[in-house]
């Protein structure tokens, strides 16, 4: 095995130092006296070449050649090669939590720059160093709002990702939290319903921007209403869209979270991803997760440290703001390098391309007989159409034609059985979009 350096001679010498003459004696001295397990269901070790060959075979059994119009919060964007070059530097990826700042300035400054990027995108004051994913980040935001308001009720729109909502439901099941889910509509009445649900007992109202159906809404009235009731406003958002959309901070949101996969992180079958979170200055000390801060060293030289650690589990234990320890640091670095490569104009260009291509795709698809639009014209890069039949069945047929045509909403919304959610990123070409529309027409 290549990963153990000790030779037989080394082992012998070290045994002498520790007063043993065999591994079995060593175990016994360490208080382990039971016989070793047989592990007979496991096979023998393989060489690197054999493992690579096996995993290449498994990789080939995954259908990544489909033309991808599947999104639902997880998107197929361009990732410049420079991103992987940096995150592939082992000075970054083989380090751990930067508790020793003098030996970790690289990681720490990167976290600080990442936090700054998230603030600039969301329009808020402070971001943490990352959470696991968009769903856990939204749950943490809900808990944070509960701590701040000392209230136990959360009002959540059903136009928030059902993937996130079922995670929040799961985590809340043993807690004294009342989740009020407000039906999603396609017009202004949904916001009205959401506002009506906010009471003096509400800790926070939770929405998504753009929502799970791709729709863009202005949220100023809802956040103002929440504040008037003493509640906080929480928003989960799509970071690429924030290059062109009004930042949530400007609409009055107190806590903004989101899934950061779209900014430089590969889809990778569900993870690792990136949960981001930002908040106002007022609520900084109630935020979960690590935070990097700027300070000076004993010579007065600028540098960075992990700060406000009294919020965290290693200090506060059962009364910490969260149980989170390891977060998604390397994914935060990935997002940071991606945002640097894209830059101010690049991310706008990506967002505009996504929106233009989605608009083109929608107009092409709506030319098909029997396909109807669902929702208005204010969408970013994802939209819903209604088909003459079961959308899940149509998607199944489209797979045979080489397309991941979108996500059938009936899986999560039984009353939307015929509806298909289609995502278009900057990677999709005019030809692919046309081919999608043609294939869709053929299978309907």
């Amino acid at each position, binding site marked *: 095995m290549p990963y153990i350096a000790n030779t037989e001679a080394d082992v012998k010498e070290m045994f002498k130092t520790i007063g043993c003459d065999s591994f079995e004696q060593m175990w016994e001295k*360490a208080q382990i006296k039971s016989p070793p397990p047989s592990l007979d269901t496991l096979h023998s070790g393989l060489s690197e070449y054999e493992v690579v060959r096996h995993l290449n075979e498994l990789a080939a059994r995954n259908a990544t050649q489909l033309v991808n119009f599947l999104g639902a919060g997880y998107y197929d964007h361009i990732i410049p090669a420079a991103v992987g070059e940096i995150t592939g530097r082992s000075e970054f990826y083989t380090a751990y939590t930067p508790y020793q700042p003098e030996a970790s300035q690289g990681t720490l400054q990167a976290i600080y720059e990442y936090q700054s990027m998230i603030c600039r995108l969301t329009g808020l004051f402070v971001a943490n160093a990352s959470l696991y994913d968009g769903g856990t980040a939204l749950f943490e935001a809900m808990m944070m709002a509960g701590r701040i308001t000392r209230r136990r009720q959360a009002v959540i729109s059903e136009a928030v990702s059902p993937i996130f909502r079922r995670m929040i439901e799961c985590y809340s099941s043993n807690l004294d939290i009342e989740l009020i889910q407000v039906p999603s509509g396609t017009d202004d009445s949904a916001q009205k319903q959401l506002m009506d649900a906010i009471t003096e007992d509400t800790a926070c109202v939770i929405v998504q921007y753009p929502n799970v159906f791709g729709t863009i809404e202005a949220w100023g009235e809802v956040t103002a209403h929440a504040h008037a009731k003493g509640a906080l406003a929480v928003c989960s958002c799509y970071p690429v869209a924030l290059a062109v959309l009004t930042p949530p901070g400007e609409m009055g949101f107190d806590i903004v979270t989101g899934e950061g996969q779209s900014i430089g992180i590969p889809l990778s*079958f569900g993870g690792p991803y990136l949960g981001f979170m930002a908040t106002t200055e007022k609520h900084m000390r109630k935020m979960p997760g690590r935070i990097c*801060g700027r300070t000076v060293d004993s010579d007065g030289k600028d540098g960075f440290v992990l700060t406000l650690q009294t919020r965290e589990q290693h200090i506060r234990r059962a009364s910490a703001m969260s149980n989170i320890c390891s977060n998604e640091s390397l994914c935060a670095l990935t997002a940071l390098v991606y945002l640097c490569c894209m830059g101010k104009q690049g991310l706008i260009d990506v967002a505009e391309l996504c929106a233009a291509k989605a608009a083109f795709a929608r107009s092409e698809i709506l030319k098909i007989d029997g396909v109807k639009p669902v929702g208005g014209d204010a969408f970013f890069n994802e939209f819903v159409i209604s088909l003459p039949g079961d959308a899940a069945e149509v998607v199944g047929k489209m797979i045979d034609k080489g397309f991941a045509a979108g996500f059938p909403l009936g899986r999560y919304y039984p009353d939307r059985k015929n509806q298909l959610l289609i995502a278009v990123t900057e990677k999709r070409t005019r030809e692919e979009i046309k081919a999608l529309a043609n294939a869709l027409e053929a299978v309907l």
Partner: protein
Amino acid sequence: MKLIFSISRSGRRGSSIPKADVPEVNAIPPQFRRKKSAELPEVSEQEVIRHFTALSRKNMGVDTNFYPLGSCTMKYNPKFHERIAALPGFAELHPLLPQLRHGGALTQGALAVIYEAERILSELLGFSACTMQPLAGAHGELAGVMLIAAYHKACNDDRRKVMLIPDAAHGTNPASAAVAGFDTVEIASDSEGNVDLEDLKKHLGPEVAGLMLTCPNTLGLFDPNVKEICRLVHEAGGLCYCDGANFNAIIGRVRPGDLGFDVMHVNLHKTFSTPHGGGGPGSGPVGVAEKLVPYLPISRVAKRSDGTYALEYDYPDSIGYIAPFYGNFGIILRAYAYMLTLGREGFRRVSENAVLNANYIRCRLAPYYDQKYNRFSMHECVFSASRQVAKGVHALDIAKALIDRGYHPPTIYFPLIVPEALMIEPTETESKDTIDSFIEAMIEIAKMTETNPEQIQQAPVKTPVKRMDETRAARTPVVADLG
């Protein structure tokens, strides 16, 4: 070093994006558009690369320095794992594909990885089943204690609201129990560093849901009473959770399921060699005994009789969805590659050499540093700088002096029950030569404490920055450059 924002120049670009091949309509209605662009930096690709390459050189990592950070298992991360994780067949795979009709057939390779990794891990842990879904160690703890809550709920036992946690535990244990809705009660350690059985018995009762025990414990010791502890907790109607952060000490040698534990997490970024990433992403799969299988999170990966794999959801007693999908797949993949490389014989060689290396350090440093518990250790050894404190040198000072000598420091001030703790975990992948050099450095620091403590107190001096003003950072937080 300058922030990336300060090298930004208006009009500079760091990437090329395809030109529009569709009509450039102004797709987004103007009332929703931001009035002022987000101030992301404007830098060239080369500037990005130089900036981050320079930053990377201000870091210590396993690939650059010995990194004996206790409780973190900073072992070598095999390089081919990174290439496998980047294969387009894995990296470009959309997680919703298998949830489409006929979609399972599109992801057979990925589902096979998860299924096989679960199978191998279950065998190593001595459990009936595993879930690979938890996204980090603490997330695994949360999932694990939620399983315990679900079990008691299913038994219609709603009194069990208390989780017992030894005083030596990681902070995540009480924090995870709290997030799952439990009250926590601390159990004392005895004079040998084991769980104080009398204190445990005193706290067992009808309100106890379970005990969270790190095995081997955070002192780097194997508690010889583990089986008895599990028996006592079970007798009182509770369940036993094993914090597997230290699984590297016993992998292939002891199966926690055989000891009587009911549920356990392991950290793939510790024992299974996946990179620590500067603080994640990790992965914290959870293994369970038969009685907890019905409560495992969904979806679950099953193998059908025809040899194909499928996602299953029909587990009515499941705690539900703890992750968006199937776990940190890219990390699970690396760990699976490691499991295949090690094989049946390799796992035990890991624990043998990890324990040997730690005891070697313990024995050689024993004349120079105090040990609160003078016992044979497992994969890490815990010293106390109590002797050095008399000269004004604290654990923190020793840590900083090590940095100047080219070593990442051990974990310090943990576990909390050892004053001035220095927790050293060499792992099995380090050579005796490296370990010997580290030992020499530790001895030199101990000697210098006697003769020239000021020099230790002033360390580090060879680093990009000296000791940081952490009080200032916390009092007047500067946490973002808002532009």
